[in-house]
């Protein structure tokens, strides 16, 4: 496919890798966090780690929207779905997230709850139109990429005069999560992870632009390179980060110029600003309570806010004790450091959220990386 295949050319990847090897300083280590789950997936799937010198370390960040949603909110969604006569529309990735008692939206569906998997918020609108006698709730999750589509749905519901459509809003913000990782005392207490620079998200940046990252570069003196999701994009971004560090620079650079403008998608931003406002505080799995890190629906759109129409209690449910999702989301631990990884917890029977979504660090490592390390060790022994 055009604009995909040419960014996956293996020979070019080898060449960029050779360039990286020739430019790294052997006197130091480089720790880069890829914030976004899409990058985590690409790094695992295309074996990028194997192309990097041993002193370049990639740390998975909390940018998988399915993974960071706390169990309490998933439990809220399950209870909503169990309301008689209510139809809950959800992105497919959410359905298998387990809650405290082993329940999930998928199990609730099997028990008779009317849960519809949708590809797009527009599908949820269509379901509401077709079922005027039912309350239809769209379980909205995700970072800045899925928020504008939710905003479009709310606007559309208003234009169509739909009085049976509401949104259970769980949209979260990338910049607040990054600054929380860098400066929160609680996160530090839970374990410190050295980060020398960030690979900035691809499609989040398509929406918000490259400007919001200027603050990190300046305030925390950490370089940020925004990269596309293809393997050559990621390799090139790593090279650009290494160059910044070697030169003592901490700037925002954009490798994904084919889709990211400095100001982002202003039309999408305006729509989001019209419908949503900041929540004072929101719980993240792995990061705890993060101030001003999520969005809620403005009171003038309260008619479309599920939290206004239904009783949705604030539930705080702890993760399964054996599950290391929290530490993995902060970059403190790796999937293979978790005792239940690949044994009790697998994509078929996930215990933690990181094993559910294909962008989750555990699922990515399970699908693409779990034999790599064993092979590497075997090679060394031979």
């Amino acid at each position, binding site marked *: 496919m055009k604009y995909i295949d040419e960014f996956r050319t293996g*020979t070019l990847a080898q*060449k960029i890798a*050779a360039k990286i090897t020739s430019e790294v300083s052997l006197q130091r280590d480089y720790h880069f966090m890829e914030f976004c789950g899409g990058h985590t997936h690409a790094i695992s799937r295309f074996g990028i780690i194997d192309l990097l010198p041993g002193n370049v370390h990639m740390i998975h960040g909390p940018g998988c929207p399915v993974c960071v949603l706390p169990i309490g909110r998933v439990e809220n969604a399950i209870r909503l779905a169990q309301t008689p006569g209510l139809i809950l529309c959800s992105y497919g990735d959410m359905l298998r997230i387990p809650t405290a008692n082993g329940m999930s939206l998928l199990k609730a569906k099997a028990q008779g709850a009317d849960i519809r998997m949708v*590809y797009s918020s527009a599908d949820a609108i269509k379901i509401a139109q077709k079922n005027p006698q039912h309350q239809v709730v769209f379980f909205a999750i995700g970072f800045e990429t899925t928020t504008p589509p939710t905003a479009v749905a709310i606007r559309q519901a208003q234009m169509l005069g739909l009085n049976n459509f509401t949104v259970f809003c769980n949209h979260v913000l990338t910049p607040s999560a990054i600054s929380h990782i860098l400066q929160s005392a609680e996160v530090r207490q839970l374990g410190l992870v050295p980060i020398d620079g960030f690979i900035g998200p691809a499609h989040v940046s398509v929406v918000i632009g490259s400007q919001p990252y200027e603050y990190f570069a300046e305030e925390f003196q950490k370089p940020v390179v925004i990269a596309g*999701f293809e393997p050559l*994009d990621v390799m090139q971004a790593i090279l650009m980060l290494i160059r910044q560090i070697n030169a003592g620079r901490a700037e925002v650079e954009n490798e994904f110029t*084919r889709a990211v403008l400095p100001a982002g998608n202003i039309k999408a931003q305006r729509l989001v600003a019209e419908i949503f406002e900041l929540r004072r505080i929101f719980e993240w799995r792995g990061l705890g309570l993060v101030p001003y890190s999520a969005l809620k629906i403005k009171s003038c759109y309260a008619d479309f806010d599920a939290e206004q129409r239904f009783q949705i209690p604030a539930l705080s449910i702890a993760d399964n004790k054996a599950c290391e999702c929290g530490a993995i989301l902060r970059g403190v631990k790796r999937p293979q450091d978790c005792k239940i990884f690949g044994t009790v917890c697998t994509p078929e029977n996930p215990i933690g959220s990181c094993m559910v979504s294909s962008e989750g660090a555990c699922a990515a490592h399970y699908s693409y990386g779990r034999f790599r390390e064993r092979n590497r060790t075997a090679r060394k022994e031979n």
Partner: protein
Amino acid sequence: MLMCLAIPACVEQLINENSAIVNLGGIRKEISLALVADIVPGDYVIVHVGFALQKLDQMEAERTLAMFAEISALNKENT
């Protein structure tokens, strides 16, 4: 279904002001154009959860690929 993985797709046909049919490697799919402006058939757009998030800048894509190629040319000189 990969919710968050967005991909570039070619716009084949406009249905109305706010929607279009795109071709994703042979699969034709209706998407919303509500978040973008001035899209014409032949444009590539980044598609995410059924919405075009941005028009892909084909010139910039070529420039990025040229930059990769430049790296490979430099490597050859070094070896």
